[in-house]
């Protein structure tokens, strides 16, 4: 993947660059909003990581300008501002996701991967398929190896998210934000309990587990 990093904190940008490059991405860095705008106009990127507060042109202005020009590249906002309205403002400006500093590296990589994936699946799907697992989005049914699996509504949503991001690490915070739509961190491992329930339904009685725990990051659904 080609990733544009627009961040005025050079050390943070370098760390991001290194981590994302090691994960197999090609990164381009810009140190302020104007530089970022030029780079975005000139290059083709799969994802842009944009800091909200920068000199010359801030992140929101940058993304608004790009969106006006018709650039639909997915944008992940980074911000030290974590208030609900800050997040809403970022998403309204055309951002696709919002990550509050400081963040865990696994979180950043997982979100960038999720954003890039979102772009590929543009068309409306009615059937999701990951290996032996099939999900009918209209009939609201799930089958593995032809056997129907009975899921609660929330388990269905959880599995749908995992299937849409199959093969990628998904963090607990992402699940809480995207499946439950809560933006706070619970003190206890509520998400783990939900995942283990889901796991017992889709993996129990089958030869091979599909729902994997990724140490230090979260979970991954493998085909």
């Amino acid at each position, binding site marked *: 993947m080609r990733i544009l990093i627009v961040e005025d904190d050079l050390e943070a940008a370098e760390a991001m660059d290194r981590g994302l490059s090691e994960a197999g991405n090609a990164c381009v860095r810009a140190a302020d909003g104007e530089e970022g705008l030029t780079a975005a106009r000139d290059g083709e990127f799969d994802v842009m990581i944009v800091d909200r507060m920068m000199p010359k042109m801030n992140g929101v202005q940058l993304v608004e300008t790009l969106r006006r020009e018709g650039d639909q590249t997915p944008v992940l906002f980074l911000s030290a501002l*974590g*208030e*609900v*309205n800050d997040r809403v403002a970022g998403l309204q400006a055309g951002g696709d996701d919002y990550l509050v500093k*400081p963040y*865990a590296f696994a979180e950043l990589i997982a979100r960038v991967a999720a954003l890039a994936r979102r772009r590929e699946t543009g068309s409306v799907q009615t059937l999701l398929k990951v290996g032996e697992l099939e999900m009918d989005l209209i009939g609201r049914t799930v089958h593995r190896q032809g056997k129907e699996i009975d899921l609660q509504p*929330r388990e269905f949503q959880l599995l749908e998210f995992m299937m849409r991001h199959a093969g990628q690490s998904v963090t607990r915070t992402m699940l809480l934000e995207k499946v*439950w739509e*809560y*933006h*706070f*961190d*619970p*003190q*206890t*491992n*509520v998400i783990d*309990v*939900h995942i*283990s*329930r889901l796991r017992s339904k889709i993996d129990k009685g089958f030869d091979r587990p599909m729902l994997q725990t990724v140490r*230090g990051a979260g979970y991954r659904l493998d085909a």
Partner: protein
Amino acid sequence: MRLPRIFRTTPFRLTLLFLALFLSAASALLAYIYVATAGEASRRTDEEIRREMHSLVAAYDRAGVSAVNQSLIERAASERPFLYLLMNKDQKRISGSIEESPVEKFNGDPTWTTFQVTDVDAAGRTVKHPARGLQQRLSMGQVLFVGADVGEDEAYVAQVVRALWGAGALTVVLGLCCGLLMSRNVTRSMTGLTEVVEAVRNGDLGARAHVRGARDEFDELAAGINEMLDRLERSMAGHRHAGDAIAHDLRSPLTRLRARLEVAYLDVEAGKGDPTQALAQALEDTDGVLKTFAAVLSIARLQAAGAAPDPVLFDPSELAASISELYEPLCEDKGIDFAAELADGLQARGNREFLAQALANILDNAVKYTPAGGAIMLRVRRRSSGEIEFSVTDTGPGVPDGDRERVVERFVRLENSRNQPGAGLGLSLVAAVAEAHGGRLELAEGPGKVGEMGPGLRVALMLPRA
């Protein structure tokens, strides 16, 4: 050019204002007194002259010039003699007590004039007296002048004027005194307030203005300043407390983190051991610190804003259902019986995100402290007062009566719960959320002791009626 400071002070201006007020009132009064006394005296003299003229004219009309002459001679002996002068058609003296008419231009119409009359006093000195007279033409063409010495009147008027000047001076003095007194009063009140402001500016937040009990504007101002300072002091104390608490709760994990990193560094430097374990631990410590930090920040923001941001109307039971859906599996895993009793058709107003977090924190606590085999009950209802109440009752060890207040305070964790994870900020945040919504947080005993279980804790978050 700038005036010296004294001239720019409010007391000085007040004094001037008082003086001006006194002076204008006194001037009006004195002017009236002058007109009523001095003016009246000169009107009376004019009237007497007119009457004398009238009687002489009457005598003339009856018996001619000789009768007038006769009258003049008779009257020369009277106590307060008028001044007379009878003249022929060419205004040549015929008879009278003065030699020539003081009227300079006489066209035949009755004419008033003011002049000086020369007299000789008891000591033989020649003195001049002010006098006034009327001259008019008689029917046969002669001219008659009647005047009067107004020296006595003038003396009286002069006396009145002197008295008035005295009164004026007295007024000025009185006005000044009054003004000074009043402004001294104002100054004293202001000085008290200024001193308080000065003290606060120099860092003494304990300074308070003296309320004299006069219930005037100064007392109101003083009371207002005191209330403002009370609030400021409380808020500062809160911040200081928060600062201490942050220092306390962040310092220990940061110290641990630093030590871990240092040990790992030394180990690597000495070429022994694998630092992976230490680094993983350090990362975990960092996450703990960041969580505490985020909670403190949320509390601080809520308290600083004083109100819940972006409030919306929502169904509290629906919110509770969504949160219990998140926690139910956790309870089941721990062997805790979870039940929810959610009333229908309720409406509340607030920030959903913060309230969801508050409920999650309450449930977090309940799950954390309730042992396997226990029970947790989540209830949403409307109280008779109209308040919306979210309550979570557990069968854990509960909180002793005397400690319930303390539990809500920031960072407080009871001694025996030190081994449980959590930054101790859970209920503080709930309290901050409740307060920001104009609601409150109430801690009470749970269902009571049952065997090993209990007595439990009941945490209730009340929102005001929507």
